[in-house]
């Protein structure tokens, strides 16, 4: 499909050219991979780099995500043990955005194949051909996602995971940092065949600046659980996008816990193509002072009887900013759609801000869609109830913060993971007492 004709200013076009010029084109790849990269570069060149004037970048200035070079960000000594560390999983490690085979686990087991992205893209006949740049390309309409196109055009590191049955254990992507300057692009391709089941975990301070894209194909009856923790790197700037295409009766559940970071933009682009599937996209974040966290979600219902949920909770203080842009698009014929969207902010002082733009666009008549968006302070009555029982005010507030975020954490199915996420939150709150 040709990009719609539109007038772009020179700044957007020059910006796109500069983004493409700043990184080498990966070499030595299969013709299909090369073609996907060329097409993505063209998409970016035609649509332009993101600027603040763009409708979906009004609340989040993309400048620090596109400027060359990336601002350095200190590598902090870990404040606590890495998350998910005790878990039995296939570990895939990246150091400053480069796959580290000697730190990673063996690559395959019955029902699952894990290989470095570069390997997949250099192979002439590969399943990744149906996925790489395909979902990202489909996700460009009606809203441009230029940083994701840039990722398709240039990212050479990442992992390709194919699951053909129930994966024997989770795949755990671990990001480590050595350099304060690392400007990193990662691309992960995930394909779940019919009936397959995978838990995909992501954690660790990836880079001073990160552009990470996941394309996930979830075939009929398959289930993908995605749980991610972004934290431990206070000055991080990150753009992430997760494109998911869902077959009939499949399930996609994605949860992100975010701490720290100067700017984090997490996009989810979910498309239902088969009937009776479910997609739950949720997130919890806590931010203090120089912190902007942006959840931008686009769910397209193009099948019958699908259920989508968006549950996002943000706790903000000290001038921290939260952004929520969530859209549910119900296409003609997508009857019996059940769409739900919740965005809530708990503002711990008067300098914190939550900017929310919930959207429903519905072209079918037999659907159930709702959204709610609230922003408020700690409930004084609840706090008094707790303190009247002897719980000190600060502890009471922390309990209420955890309680507020719990509705989002409850979206994670696995109880062990929920417990781990709650413990991380408690740790963060304890370390950031005022």
């Amino acid at each position, binding site marked *: 499909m040709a990009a719609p004709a539109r007038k772009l200013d020179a700044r957007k076009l020059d910006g796109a050219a500069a983004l493409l010029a700043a990184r080498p084109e990966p070499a030595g790849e299969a013709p299909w991979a090369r073609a996907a990269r060329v097409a993505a570069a063209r998409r970016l060149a035609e649509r332009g780099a993101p600027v603040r004037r763009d409708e979906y970048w009004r609340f989040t200035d993309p400048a620090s995500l596109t400027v060359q070079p990336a601002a350095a960000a200190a590598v902090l000594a870990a404040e606590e043990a890495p998350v998910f560390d005790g878990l039995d999983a296939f570990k895939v490690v990246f150091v400053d955005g480069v796959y580290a085979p000697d730190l990673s686990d063996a690559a395959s087991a019955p029902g699952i194949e894990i290989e470095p992205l570069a390997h997949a893209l250099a192979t002439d006949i590969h399943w990744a051909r149906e996925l790489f740049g395909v979902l990202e390309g489909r996700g460009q309409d009606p809203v441009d996602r230029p940083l994701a196109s840039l990722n398709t055009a240039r990212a050479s590191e990442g992992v390709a995971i194919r699951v053909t049955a129930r994966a024997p254990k989770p795949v755990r992507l671990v990001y480590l940092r050595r350099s304060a300057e690392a400007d990193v692009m990662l691309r992960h391709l995930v394909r779940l065949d019919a009936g397959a089941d995978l838990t995909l975990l992501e954690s660790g301070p990836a880079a001073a600046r990160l552009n990470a894209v996941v394309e996930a194909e979830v075939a009929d009856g398959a289930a993908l659980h995605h749980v991610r923790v972004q934290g431990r790197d206070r000055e991080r700037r990150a753009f992430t996008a997760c494109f998911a295409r869902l077959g009939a009766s499949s399930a996609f559940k994605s949860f992100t816990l975010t701490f720290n970071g100067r700017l984090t933009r997490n996009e989810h682009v979910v498309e239902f193509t088969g009937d009776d599937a479910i997609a739950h996209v949720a997130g919890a974040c806590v931010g203090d002072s120089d912190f902007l966290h942006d959840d931008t979600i686009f769910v397209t219902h193009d099948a019958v009887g699908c259920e989508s949920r968006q549950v996002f909770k943000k706790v903000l203080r000290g001038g921290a900013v939260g952004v929520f842009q969530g859209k549910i698009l119900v296409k003609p014929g997508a009857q019996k759609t059940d769409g739900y969207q919740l965005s809530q902010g708990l503002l711990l002082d008067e300098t914190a801000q939550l900017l929310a733009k919930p959207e429903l666009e519905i072209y079918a008549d037999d659907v159930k869609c709702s959204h709610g968006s609230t922003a408020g302070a700690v409930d*004084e*009555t*609840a706090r*008094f*109830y*707790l*303190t*009247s*029982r*002897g*719980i*000190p*005010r600060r*502890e*009471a507030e922390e*309990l*209420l913060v*955890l*309680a*507020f*975020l*719990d*509705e989002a954490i409850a979206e994670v199915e696995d109880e062990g993971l929920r417990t781990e996420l709650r413990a991380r939150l408690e740790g963060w709150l304890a370390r950031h007492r005022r």
Partner: protein
Amino acid sequence: MLKIGNLHVRLEEEDKAILKGVDLAVGAGEVHAIMGPNGSGKSTLSYVLAGREGYEVTEGTATLDGHDLLAIEPEERAALGLFLAFQYPVEIPGVGNLTFMRTALNAQRKARGEAELNAAEFLKLVRAKAKTLDIDAEMLKRPLNVGFSGGEKKRNEILQMAVLEPRMCILDETDSGLDVDAMKLVAAGVNALRAKDRAFLVITHYQRLLDHITPDVVHIMADGRIVQTGGPELALEVETNGYAGILQGAA
């Protein structure tokens, strides 16, 4: 134990005087009831004693065992042994009932320099107390007061009281929203806690709760003051003549 002298309080937001000189002394082992028409200031008195924000004390004193209550935070008052059973217990989704009670008990113990209870010790304690109030394990596991019926909420308040073992218990309209059976259960819970070193202040609009929790002293409150004090028979008089009759007599 609890001494209130010439207490004047106004609502901060509305600049409106609510309490206009309350005098009250409750001794150890005693049960006092405060009755009065709506708007007389009964609930305000309970909130001010427990330390809720939004009220300004313009004059007067309130002490518990000689400690100045008005100078300290709600959690410090609780650690001294003050407990308010809420008229409308607050629902807090995401905070487990058990977690809440253990956090509260251990915070109080810590404030008093006592050893904290571990999860097993606490569970044993709370199970024994819950049984007598007909509170099952499922109710203990649920988020605090969420989805509880009116009766369950009030029983949960009494359970907290039993677990925290306060010296001075204030019950704010604990009978509101209760049917007769629930009220008997709550009253039995309260009566079980009556002790030589513990006192109760039972705030109620109706006399019926006092059929089950027999007070030593009954006060009638009107327009921010205690206007009459007597024995249990005063509560019966309210039942017979209404507040209007009594207030006329007092005037």
